């Protein structure tokens, strides 16, 4: 909790202003009972014949009015600054959280879960905001009321103070017990909310599948269960709170009444049946006891809210303190000193996921060359995607080295490293905004010409042009484009960057052959001097690759050209056979010869 407050350094001056206003408001408010006291004293001491001093009463009334006005002004000031403090507190918290998540590695996100992060950034932040709003007001007001009130009481008669001394510990006990019971429940509430959010989100992302399998009932059953269980915990928490409130209020009222009883006791002790000063004193004391207990009540609210806020604070802090697994090298080389050769090299790389014992990749060694295509092929789960994910450091190699432009990827600033790479992932992810916004991901200052060129190469200018060109809006997740169109836009996004290293992770899977071929042809001209790494399923897409890396269960089973592998690598032969018949294989061999002849001729 305190740690969170430390994050709010920029708000400290606001906090101080709030405190000043609160103090002012409190002091002014405390003046009023004194004046009422004077009026009642005036009445009780008044000459029975002449009646009370009218002028005095009116003057006192006027003074009270003035103080009320000042108090009002202070209260307004307090509210304005406090509301601003609260709003900004939420803003900073959300913003810090969002920024922190931007540095998360993929495994971080998977660990916490998207839904839970969503709850933390909204619901948990709101809980804390409400708490802060109350805290800032009460933190000054309540203690001031208590101290000043107690001093005044002592001044009147120490006997009255005993009421406070008895009443407060009782309230304290009630609060502590509540705290103990409610604390764990509040963490539970937020966890349950995470789960409800998760089920909600799954229902949304899987809407087609749910409907296709008629599983609405099942989905609903699960949701209902989670919803019910969250509601039950909420009801339990609510009941505890509603149980405590009246108990405190009864204690409070008994204390108030006790003031008058003490008054009667003092009256009896004084032995003077006409003692009227004592009477007015008692009414004054009642006012102060009222203030003291009221502020104690306010404090108790803070304590009651504390467990829930603490639970939320803990969740937010956990997200803020989660260390990204991929860290920047402090001694990273400045990007300007690295020659942009466009070479990727794997040196005996071994890679194991943290929660797995068997290495996903082992003994991987190969080098790409500028102007050449390196293809990676292998079965599902053979480690193709893991392999290329090591290049932009989505994960770090467990052993061995991955070198980009002859420098270990770990010696780069992560951002610098990634700007050197045009990476197109398996699942095309687009962002809401215009096509232009999406393309500028690759290069923030790209001109329209550059973007249109990239779109043309990616075979997407045709359908983009037909809509509203670069200004075509992309809805969230790119839902207004077909799978193939999304993929091509994702490719264009990488092309705009014009890097010297391209990585395509099975990025042509949603394209038909014709588009695929057109795209590749255009690409070969566009990326003449770049190293191109392609993860592919179709043999036909990689026949022309200068080198093909064949992976099986995380190991390299062969490396070479199509023709070489066809004669030497068993796994490769199987792959090819599964896709083509004899004639077709013959045809592909023919292509290779043509290519060789073509190159030889030059």
């Amino acid at each position, binding site marked *: 909790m305190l740690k969170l407050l430390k994050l709010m350094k920029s708000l400290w001056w606001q906090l101080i202003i709030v405190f000043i206003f609160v103090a002012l408001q409190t002091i002014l408010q405390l003046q009023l009972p004194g004046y009422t006291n004077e009026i009642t004293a005036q009445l009780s001491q008044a000459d029975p014949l002449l009646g009370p001093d009218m002028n005095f009463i009116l003057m006192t*009334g006027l003074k*009270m009015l003035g103080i009320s006005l000042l108090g009002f002004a202070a209260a307004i000031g307090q509210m304005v600054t406090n509301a601003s403090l609260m709003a900004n507190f939420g803003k900073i918290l959300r913003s810090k959280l969002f920024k922190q998540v931007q540095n998360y590695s993929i495994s971080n996100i998977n660990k916490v879960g998207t839904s839970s992060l969503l709850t933390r950034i909204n619901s948990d932040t709101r809980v804390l905001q409400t708490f802060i709003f109350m805290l800032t007001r009460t933190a000054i007001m309540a203690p001031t009321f208590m101290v000043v009130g107690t001093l005044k009481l002592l001044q009147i008669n120490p006997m009255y103070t005993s009421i406070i001394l008895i009443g407060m510990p009782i309230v304290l006990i009630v609060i502590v017990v509540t705290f103990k019971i409610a604390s764990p429940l509040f963490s539970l509430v937020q966890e349950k909310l995470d789960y409800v959010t998760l089920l909600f989100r799954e229902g949304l992302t899987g809407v087609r599948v749910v409907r296709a399998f008629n599983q609405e009932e099942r989905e609903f059953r699960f949701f209902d269960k989670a919803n019910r269980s969250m509601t039950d915990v909420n009801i339990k928490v609510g009941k505890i709170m509603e149980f405590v409130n009246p108990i405190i209020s*009864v204690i409070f009222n008994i204390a108030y009444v006790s003031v008058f009883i003490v008054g009667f006791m003092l009256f009896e002790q004084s032995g003077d049946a006409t003692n009227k000063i004592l009477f007015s004193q008692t009414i004054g004391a009642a006012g102060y006891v009222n203030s003291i207990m009221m502020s104690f009540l306010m404090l108790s609210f803070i304590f009651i809210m504390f467990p829930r806020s603490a639970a939320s604070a803990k969740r937010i802090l956990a997200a803020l303190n989660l260390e990204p697994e991929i860290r920047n090298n402090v001694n990273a080389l400045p990007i300007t000193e690295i020659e942009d050769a466009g070479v990727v090299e794997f040196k005996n790389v071994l890679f194991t996921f943290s929660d797995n014992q068997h290495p996903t990749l082992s003994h991987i060694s190969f080098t790409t060359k500028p102007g050449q295509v390196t293809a990676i092929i292998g079965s599902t789960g053979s480690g193709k995607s893991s392999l290329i994910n090591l290049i932009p450091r989505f994960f770090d190699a467990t052993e061995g080295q991955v070198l980009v432009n002859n420098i270990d990827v770990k010696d780069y600033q992560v951002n610098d490293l990634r700007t050197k790479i045009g990476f197109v992932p398996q699942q095309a992810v687009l962002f809401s905004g215009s096509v232009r916004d999406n393309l500028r991901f690759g290069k923030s200052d790209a001109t329209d010409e550059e973007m249109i060129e990239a779109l043309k190469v990616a075979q997407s200018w045709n359908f983009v042009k037909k809509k509203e060109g670069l200004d075509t809006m992309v809805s969230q997740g790119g839902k207004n484009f077909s799978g193939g169109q999304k993929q091509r836009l994702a490719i264009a996004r990488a092309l705009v960057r014009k890097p010297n290293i391209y990585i395509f992770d099975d990025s042509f899977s949603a394209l038909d052959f014709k588009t695929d071929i057109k795209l590749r042809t255009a690409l070969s001209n566009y990326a003449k001097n770049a190293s191109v790494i392609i993860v592919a399923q179709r043999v036909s897409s990689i026949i022309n690759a200068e080198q093909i890396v064949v992976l099986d269960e995380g190991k390299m089973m062969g490396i070479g050209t199509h023709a070489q592998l066809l004669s030497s690598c068993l796994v490769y032969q199987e792959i090819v056979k599964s896709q083509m018949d004899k004639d077709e294989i013959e045809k592909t061999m023919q292509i290779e010869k043509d290519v060789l002849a073509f190159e030889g001729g030059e």
Partner: protein
Amino acid sequence: MPPKMQMSGRQSRPKNSKQSFLKLLIEFRAYRTKLIIISLIIIAGAVLQVMVPVFIQPILNINNLQSYVLNATPLTLNWLRIAGDFGLIIGFYIVSAILNMFALLLLVRIANDYGYSLRNKIKKKLDRLPLSYFDKHSYGEILSKGTNDVDAITQSLNQIVYQTLHSISLFVGVLVAMFIINWRLALVTLATLPLSLLITFTITKTSQKQFVKFQVKTGELEGIVEENFSGLSIIQLYNQQQNQIDKFEAVNKEMTKANWVSQLLSAFIFPSIRFVNNLGFVGVSVVGGLINDSGSIAAFLLFLNMFTLPFQQLGQISGIIQTTLAGAERIFELLDAKEEDKDIPDAISDETLIHGEYKFRNVAFSYSPDKPLIENMNLDIKQGDIVAIVGPTGAGKTTLVNLVMRFYEISEGEITLDGVNIRDYKRETLRSSVGMVLQDTWIFKGTIGANIRYGRSDASEEDMILAAESAKVHHFITTLPGGYNFVLNEDGTNISQGQRQLITIARAIISNPRILILDEATSSVDTRTEYAIQTVMEDIMKNRTTFIIAHRLSTIKNAKKIIVMNRGSIIETGTHQELLAANGFYAELYNAQFLGSSQNVEPVIASN
């Protein structure tokens, strides 16, 4: 118990809070009895609370003091009487507190149950919305309605109901009691009323807009955040963190401003009322002094607090009330959204009638009215046919599937299944007769077993393993810790895309449907595995009408009928051989993969 309110399918959008408020009230009909009991309890509690000053007044009247004196010298007091009087007051307090507690305990349950039913209702509503709704609204925004907005209502509803009822009864009670004790002081107090009313209403009116804005911005922010968290790897790859942060900050800033202004405005109520209270305080002190009635002053000081308490409470909770109304407005917007057309009254629900013969007659469809996509499409598919649909991306292949599943409604013409318009089947029947595997795999958080059994929940352990074996994923599953009990992450992020696809294939296999749709089902599965499952797939496809959408032409060469689509219409149909012979669009498409062999075209992949 969810309220019995039936949501009409008609489109009506509550544009203002008044309407939402009314709707909220209507929703509460289900809790009528409980609410009446609660009201009675609260009124009783308030009456008791009002009684206290009435009792205190005579005790504290200085002129009445002597009645407690038993003996003047030495001064002895009538303690029995004192104890009796004060005991009575404390008794009143306790009973009033207990009554309030009962009311609040009941209310907590109602509020949470209402929130519960509201969430369930939203969840159910989402099942009835046409898919086009999800194309238009971001996931984050819908999520925010189901979580943040419902939360806003639940957490404050008990307070709102209690405070409102309590305030009103207290107000009336105090008014009566005041006039009984001292009508002159009562008039002084009453004079503050118009001021209180004026302040409360003016402020509430202006701040409502800001509260709505705040909730709207919250939804917007959630949209951005959801999108960002889901696509984080891309963002990092392109170093777009800063841009995303800027985008986020822009909304965050607006949200903060709405938050501040709304809180600020409603926060004005409290000190303003307090000020009015102080005015009354001064007035009562002065007038009470003038008429020399100190007992009444003491009582009125308590009364004054109670008299302005309703407004103070209103001030305190006005922020909450307005957040709630803003939330309600957004929720009702969702609940009132137009639903899918209902199944016709006597829709066919007998699945055994379905064999899989499709006819498309002059079908027209488009996602948005101004951009026609499919026009005048005619198609005949016989029972057991394997139909492959090929064509360039964006040709409308997936759209065709969407229509077969009745995810979208066609605008013209008709689609019949076994001679019956698909609209005459119950949706459930139509869809359960179709097994569908999509390119975008969907995996939920849960065990692998549960994910496979999703296709048929009553499937036995053996069936499940058999399906996994057929989909060639059994071996992989057994290598995982826990095997079929291995828990998949949200979105299935702890296995590869290819493995996810195999699991969804197993899911379709287990459901044993009459009709099969494979929309790029194996696009991320490597060809060796695909080859291995091919024979199984052929088995599965036997006697089943099957639609295959695939780019790998090798997977569709054996199809009985190949439909070639381009720009929303069918341009060629026939078998692989026929289409090659025709030397049209398909032949061009097919030969493209061997480009460079016979024709003397530039090699496909870069080499200079």
